[in-house]
């Protein structure tokens, strides 16, 4: 903690722009919400991209200001937020080297993905016959950028949590963007179920985050980062362990670590730019950022650090093995993302925060590149499929298109009238794409080499730094991560051979078309970053730029020199893995309908990889089934039979009925008040019946009455 200066007053620089990190995307969002319906697609996309780009410009200016300010923390207070009792929370932007790094990654990669999405969504909405939804996609994307900016620029755990929930919401909205379809475009609730799975799994993680927050406030007395960190030394050790472990649950939810990673592969239901932006480059790294931000907490409890590192390392290896057995191009990348997030979590768990952040940045570049290229491949196949289908059935195609929407609702995707559903994401449907999609092919190769950790691509440097840190302090983590790196290179090699080499296995792959420039140019930028991104933090004396930069926030760390042994082992393993993958998939390309060549030698192990080690099924039996049973029990027995049937219907309604019908209506009203009123009536009638006899019409009897009256009165007067 070298840079613990609370400079509330700002000295020069562009710090006053900090609120525009959030307001810029929100402005774009509002413009598109209000006027989006009237704009054409290009305008909508441009506005959204400009909004995100403005946030990037602000991030650059802020980073520049921080460097002018010698890396000192600047806290830009925007508004008072919550002031209750001893809790004083303000809406304060925290601008230091760590947060500006995250801002640059989020807004930079985010802007490129915005631009790419203009091209991608243009076609995607047309394949799904839902042109009107183009605008909504960019509204969600801008909302995500705004939420992510709140997350990374917050000055307290609560503000971070607001962003944390905001990105979770955007993740939910965007996974379920095609909520009425499944991933193949058929009518189904599969996509919305995937969205719900992501949201609910993240709820479990958020529960951990909240508990950590409560403990923090209770024992450390604040949510504000500096105050929390200052209180760590005086707090009991067990409390810090509890806080960090509960926080790890939150991290496991958001950053897809064991045991909560299961939502991320399903999240591939979202459009591919979403997978790239949210589920690879930015949102899922929020957990890594959280641990890095909480470095003073974690550094004070080595037990918790060890647990974090092991969770990350096991996740890295576990997810990498699953990726080997996947056929969906995006699923492979999804498990790869989980695996790489495992690398980052392991790194920050070991205290190698710079290495973790370094890998976070390079991973954002090359994984966004891979995902977006995969999106390009999928669309290329979709184009090929449509062109081929159009060619085959051009007679009734025009007619079909008109009633396409209606037909879709009844029979699924309008174009799948020949029964078989074509999956443009299945690698078994690809093959030979290097000829039809050359640009995408080269971009994919660059992303793959970066991910596999081949010298001199970005991934080599960042992964190597993590492995080096692990080899020095945590041998178990080192071996797990090295094995994961081996599998990483293998499944990426397998993907390359299956997708781009060999012969086209379907007509769609044969007729695949290259993507337009609006999609490929952002990819080229990302590709350049994937190649040179390693220069951010080279392991040579004087080149630890990122380490030095983040050192302003995290404390100066020693920059490790390149260890040829560690780097050599990992590179050699990666090359061997690629060689094996060539031996299996490249030498004899997969034929149409052929089973995976790994299936025979590995047997049931491969079946396990193919089926994600049956984790989802395990969760189904262990958690979801009992949970459903409990919900069923609570709904049927407790709620319906006990509360509704017994308490409400029998006791309360019965008592009410008894009171109103018997007690009040029958006894009080009818037999009490009514009876008295009726008695008054009958009594009056009876009395008047008696009295009318006096009025007999005989004058003489009246006279007699008068006489008797007079006699009585006189008698009274005389004898009184």
């Amino acid at each position: 903690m070298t840079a613990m200066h609370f400079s509330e007053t700002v000295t020069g620089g562009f710090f006053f722009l900090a609120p525009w990190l959030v307001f810029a995307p929100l402005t774009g969002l509002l413009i598109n919400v209000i006027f989006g319906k009237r704009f054409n697609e290009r305008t909508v996309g441009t506005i959204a991209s400009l909004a995100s780009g403005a946030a990037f410009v602000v991030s650059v200016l802020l980073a520049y200001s921080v460097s002018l300010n010698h890396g000192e923390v600047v806290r830009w207070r925007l508004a008072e937020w919550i002031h209750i009792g001893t809790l004083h929370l303000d809406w304060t932007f925290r601008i230091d080297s760590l947060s500006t790094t995250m801002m640059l990654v989020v807004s930079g990669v985010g802007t490129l993905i915005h631009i790419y999405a203009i091209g991608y969504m243009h076609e995607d909405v047309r394949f799904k016959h839902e042109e009107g939804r183009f605008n909504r996609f960019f509204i969600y994307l801008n909302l995500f950028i705004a939420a992510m900016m709140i997350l990374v620029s917050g000055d307290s755990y609560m503000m971070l949590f607001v962003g944390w929930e905001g990105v979770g919401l955007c993740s939910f909205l965007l996974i379920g963007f095609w909520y009425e379809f499944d991933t193949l475009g058929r009518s189904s609730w599969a996509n919305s179920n995937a969205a719900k799975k992501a949201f609910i799994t993240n709820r479990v993680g958020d529960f951990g985050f909240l508990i950590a927050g409560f403990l923090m406030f209770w024992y450390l007395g604040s949510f504000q980062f500096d105050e929390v960190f200052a209180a760590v030394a005086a707090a009991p050790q067990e409390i810090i362990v509890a806080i960090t472990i509960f926080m790890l649950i939150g991290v496991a939810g958001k950053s897809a670590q064991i045991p909560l990673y299961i939502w991320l592969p399903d999240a591939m239901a979202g459009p591919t730019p979403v997978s790239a932006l949210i589920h690879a480059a930015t949102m899922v790294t929020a957990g890594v950022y959280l641990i890095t931000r909480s470095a003073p907490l974690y550094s004070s409890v080595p037990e918790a650090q060890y647990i974090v590192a092991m969770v990350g390392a096991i996740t890295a290896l576990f997810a990498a093995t699953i990726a080997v057995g996947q056929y969906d191009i995006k699923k492979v990348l999804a498990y790869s993302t989980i695996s790489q997030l495992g690398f980052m979590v392991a790194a920050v768990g070991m205290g190698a925060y710079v290495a973790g952040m370094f890998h976070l940045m390079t991973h954002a570049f090359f994984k966004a590149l891979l995902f977006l290229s995969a999106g390009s491949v999928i669309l290329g196949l979709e184009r090929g499929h449509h062109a081929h289908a159009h060619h085959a059935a051009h007679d009734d195609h025009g007619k079909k298109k008109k009633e396409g929407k209606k037909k879709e609702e009844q029979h699924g995707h309008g174009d799948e009238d020949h029964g078989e559903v074509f999956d443009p994401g299945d690698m078994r449907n690809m093959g030979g794409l290097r000829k039809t999609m050359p640009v995408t092919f080269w971009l994919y190769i660059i992303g793959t080499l970066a991910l596999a950790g081949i010298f001199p691509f970005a991934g080599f440097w960042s992964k190597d730094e993590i492995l080096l840190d692990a080899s020095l302090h945590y041998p178990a983590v080192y071996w797990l991560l090295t094995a994961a790196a081996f599998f990483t290179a293998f499944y990426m090699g397998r993907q390359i051979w299956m997708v781009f080499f060999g012969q086209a296995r379907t007509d769609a792959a044969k007729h695949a078309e290259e993507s337009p420039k609006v999609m490929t140019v952002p990819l080229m930028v990302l590709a350049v970053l994937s190649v040179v991104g390693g220069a951010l933090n080279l392991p040579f004396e004087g080149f630890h730029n990122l380490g030095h930069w983040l050192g302003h926030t995290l404390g100066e760390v020693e920059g490790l020199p390149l260890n040829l042994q560690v780097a050599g082992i990992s590179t050699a393993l990666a090359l061997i893995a690629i060689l094996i993958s060539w031996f299996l998939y490249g030498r004899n390309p997969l034929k149409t309908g052929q089973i995976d060549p790994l299936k025979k030698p590995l047997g049931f192990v491969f079946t396990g990889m193919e089926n994600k080690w049956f984790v989802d099924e395990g969760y189904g039996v262990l958690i979801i089934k009992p949970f459903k049973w409990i919900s069923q029990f609570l709904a049927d027995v407790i709620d319906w039979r006990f509360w509704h049937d017994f308490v409400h219907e029998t006791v309360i309604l019965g008592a009410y009925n008894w009171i109103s019908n018997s007690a009040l209506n029958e006894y009080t009203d009818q037999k009490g008040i009514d009876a008295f009123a009726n008695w008054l009536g009958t009594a009056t009638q009876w009395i008047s019946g008696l009295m009318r006899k006096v009025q007999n019409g005989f004058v003489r009897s009246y006279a007699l009455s008068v006489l008797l009256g007079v006699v009585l009165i006189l008698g009274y007067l005389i004898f009184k």
Partner: protein
Amino acid sequence: MIPVDYYVALSAVLFSIGALGVLIRRNPLIIFMSIELMLNAANLAFVAFGRSHEIQTGEPFFGGQIFVFFVIAVAAAEVAVGLALIVEIFKTKKNINIDELNSLKG
């Protein structure tokens, strides 16, 4: 000299006869005559008590006689009205039996 008690007794007898006549006779003319009887019983009582008072005090006292004149005047007026009524009733009902004049019966 005849004591005042005798007059009062006679007055009472006359009043009773008159009252009895009013109560039991059905002809309105006779009832009127009975009413005259009662009024005159009252007149007798007035005169008797007035004279008795004059004797007791030894001073001339005309209050009783004066009151009798009023009663006679009122009785004459009453008879005039009453007979007119009876004539009118007879004209409409052709009957003056008092027991059949019961249209106010309850």
